[in-house]
């Protein structure tokens, strides 16, 4: 995907002379297509939320329920985890298991902190009777934010599996491809979260 994967001799060639792209580029492109389809799934949930956000059925509105301070901390966790994930990718390129483990561990911890904050928030809302069954607004809220949370949970599980694979299988191409796909997945989740905090939490009035 970047210039570093293209050997110097091939830069000046025309596309027809260059031959097939290197494996990493093809794997990245395939996973990129999956990510775009995933983002289209989220766009449907965003559309549902945008349509239903005012339909509170005389229940609590977003402005009453949401705490911007905790959302800011959640956002900070995700942004930092994106950075540690990028550090992990860098460590993988240089085949440094120690740095890879550090990056993956920090990513895991920050992702878990984000999930814990989100689940606490959900728990408090449920305790106040503001569950997904209260109003169309809350149904759409739990569907959208819950779907993002589900993606983060699945990503954390994936990362644990990848950490194990680095130790059991080593730096073989298959493992590096999977790690590269995980990094793409994790950064794409951050992009979805930017939409969530802007539209859901900051848009609430």
């Amino acid at each position, binding site marked *: *995907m*970047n*210039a570093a994967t293209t050997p110097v001799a091939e830069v000046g060639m025309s596309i027809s002379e260059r031959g097939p792209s*290197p494996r990493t580029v093809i794997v990245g*492109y395939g996973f990129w297509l999956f990510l775009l389809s995933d983002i289209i799934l989220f766009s449907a949930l965003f559309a549902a939320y945008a349509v239903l956000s005012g339909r509170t059925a005389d229940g609590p509105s977003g402005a009453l329920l949401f705490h911007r301070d905790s959302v800011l901390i959640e956002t900070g966790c995700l942004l930092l985890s994106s950075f540690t994930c*990028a550090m992990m990718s860098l460590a993988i390129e240089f085949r440094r298991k120690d740095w890879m483990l550090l990056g993956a561990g920090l990513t895991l911890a920050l992702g878990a902190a984000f999930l814990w904050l989100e689940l606490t928030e959900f728990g408090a809302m449920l305790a106040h009777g503001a569950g997904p069954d209260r109003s169309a607004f809350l149904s759409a809220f739990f569907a959208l934010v819950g779907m993002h949370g589900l993606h983060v949970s699945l990503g954390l599980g994936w990362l644990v599996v990848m950490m194990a694979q680095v130790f059991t299988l080593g730096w073989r*191409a298959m493992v590096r491809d999977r790690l590269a796909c995980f990094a793409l997945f994790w950064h794409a989740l951050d992009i979805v979260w930017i939409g969530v905090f*802007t539209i859901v939490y900051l848009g609430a009035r």
Partner: protein
Amino acid sequence: MDERDQRHAPSDDQERPGDAADWKSRLVKSLLGLAASIVLTLASFWAAGTHLVWGPGVPVLLAALAIGQMGVHLVFFLHVSSGPEGTNTILALAFGVFVVALVVFGSLVIMANLDAGMAGMDGLTRMQR
């Protein structure tokens, strides 16, 4: 490893002592991305709570900041570039953005239209009573 990989194997699997500069530039790129992202996030949270900006302009400002931050993530973390290998990625991204815009704005327009129609019906039944 398949045959496609063989061509790149020498550059791929050896120790690369000459890449120290590359290592640093990658780290700097990630740090820049993180810094830009943090600044844009703080700006968003500030814009949502401030009274310095004209009220109806706040959603526009928030949208601009969010799109800017998404761009930062695409370039600095997802490494989307306009280089020779990035053409397909950019094309797919453009199509994805098109579908997302269609789904979101299409839903909003149609539902607002139906809602306006329903309000008319509501008024009609009220008049009949």
